[in-house]
């Protein structure tokens, strides 16, 4: 009940913000009868109606993860965000091994198995991407070998 009500409220508010933001869209002199504002405002209006409907008629609640599971999910999101930032500066191998190992550990909490999965995936996928598919990936941070050469 409460989940759907909150979701409905969030949708309603977001849709209102979307409509408000649509009114701020600049129009050019080369305009058509509809213009760039009308369609987004229609979408927003439909979403507001549906959002209010959900607040009034919510479905039963799903079971949300709690405690350890919730923590595991949050760790996973944090790790993925970190991976997104590190892929370019740190090269492919190291961030991939770490991220894959952590994700593997979250799915099945056995440390050794997770480390092996991380290393294996990192090296295996690198070989596949680089040599079988020919994608331009850097294995290590570029600066590591730049100084030596």
């Amino acid at each position: 009940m409460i989940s759907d009500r909150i979701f409905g409220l969030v949708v309603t508010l977001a849709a209102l913000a979307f409509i408000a933001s649509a009114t701020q869209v600049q129009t050019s002199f080369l305009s058509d009868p509809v213009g760039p504002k009308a369609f987004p405002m229609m979408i927003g209006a439909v979403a507001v109606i549906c959002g209010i409907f959900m607040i009034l008629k919510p479905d039963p609640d799903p079971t949300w993860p709690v405690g350890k599971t919730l923590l595991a999910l949050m760790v996973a999101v944090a790790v993925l965000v970190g991976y997104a930032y590190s892929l370019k500066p740190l090269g492919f191998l190291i961030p991939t091994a770490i991220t894959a190992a952590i994700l593997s550990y979250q799915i099945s909490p056995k440390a050794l198995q997770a480390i092996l999965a991380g290393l294996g995936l990192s090296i295996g996928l690198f070989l596949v991407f680089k040599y079988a598919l020919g994608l331009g990936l850097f294995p290590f941070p570029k600066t590591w070998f730049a100084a030596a050469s």
Partner: protein
Amino acid sequence: MEILNNLALGFSIALSPYTLMLAVVGCFIGTIIGALPGLGPSNGVAILIPITFTLGLDATSALVLMTSVYYGAMYGGRISSILLNIPGDEPALMTTLDGYPMAKQGKAGNALVLSGVASFVGAFLATIGLLLLAPILARVAYLFGPAEYFALYLLAFCTLGGMASNNQAKAAIASCIGLGIAMIGLDNNSGLPRFTFGNLHLMDGIDFLVAIVGLFAIAEVFFFIEGHGKSSSIGVKLDKVTVPWREIYITRWTMLRASAVGFVAGILPGAGASLGSFLAYMSEKSIAGKDGGFGTGVPKGVAAPEAGNNAAAGGALVPMLTLGVPGSGTTAVLLALLMTLNITPGPTLFTDRPEVVWGLIASLLIANVVLLLMNVPMVKVFVRILQVPAWVLLPGVTMVSFVGIYSLSGSYFDLLLMVAFGVLGYVLRKLDVPTVPVILGILLGRHMEDALRRAMVIADGDLMYLFSSSISIGLWIAAVAGFVAPTFLRGVLTKPQRVTD
């Protein structure tokens, strides 16, 4: 005759050794993707699109590869349904009802071969249907103006929304989320930015591939983390695989009927393969009556949903190719592929790029034969692959997704967006909000707005123009009916529960 000439053109493209090789590779990868629990046709095809794109294949080759994967995934879905009682993808759910009991009786090999043959019959007939029906529909599609297209897009959202969710409001919200996201970026007409909030990364809009991979693949990873990979159960053992000629023979009419039902269900916008297999199973169940023993492991119960789901997969290509409106989640992903390759589906595709259309149809026929040959003798290989544990598979899926999206743009911003879409997809699915309409909204939002604006330019702002032709009135009525009807049919069309041990 025209069709034969066109087919000859298609085969001349598809039978080149390189294209043939791509079809075989695609079928192999596709079957694996379909068989692995947690990777269905939608997310499997989704994570492969960016990689195919960076490989620099030409349009026809890329299309052949990906549609082979698509057909392959439809075949593969049955393997884990039968052996593990876990549907590899949503349409394969109905196959668990009789496939798993049959496997428990020690007839796993028979069930696998029979379902493989049924898949072949369904997919083959649907491909024939596609090549007969698509050119006709393409001719009809020439009559479509912007007003008709606007109504057609609306129809797609309404039926998909009506079918995909138990709650119409939630389906509509999902469509709105997608459409709203599609609005981000430069306006097509005026060239001025909308909803970018001054962020330069958002000027080009949000790439639909980022959204698709996030919503399908990354969200799936979160679900596995939540379940701690519990769903990876130990299944039934597979002993000897022989061809059960007798069972194939007694199910021949079932296969044909189920193919017809599935094909029609596939053509309906928004219905897709899940409905195809469902309707095929239910209609065969009522034909067989109470003595048919459906649900206890009868061959007909395995053949019907498999023929239905593969026929629907072919049928779904009809509206996608001729009108540019996908019939299911996976065809939405295939539409994304076409758009990535700069191919605009629609009636003009048949006249401007016949080599793409007919090459595709020919390679579907070839892929089908390849899949049959691959799936009967090599089924043991796929069963072995099925044993890849979730703790290797899901991190692997994540890494492939990241590399794919990263190689598209080389920007960390798209990766962050992808993770955000993953979280969104998780929350939406938790709340029982379908994610396919979100994808459809992102894919079609701009086209829908353009259709509306062009219609209004023609009519000089007269809203009644939207209802001025009989085609558009029919589409509007169908849209309203498609959205409202499932509420009343819900009592009749409840899905049977999965078999529990």
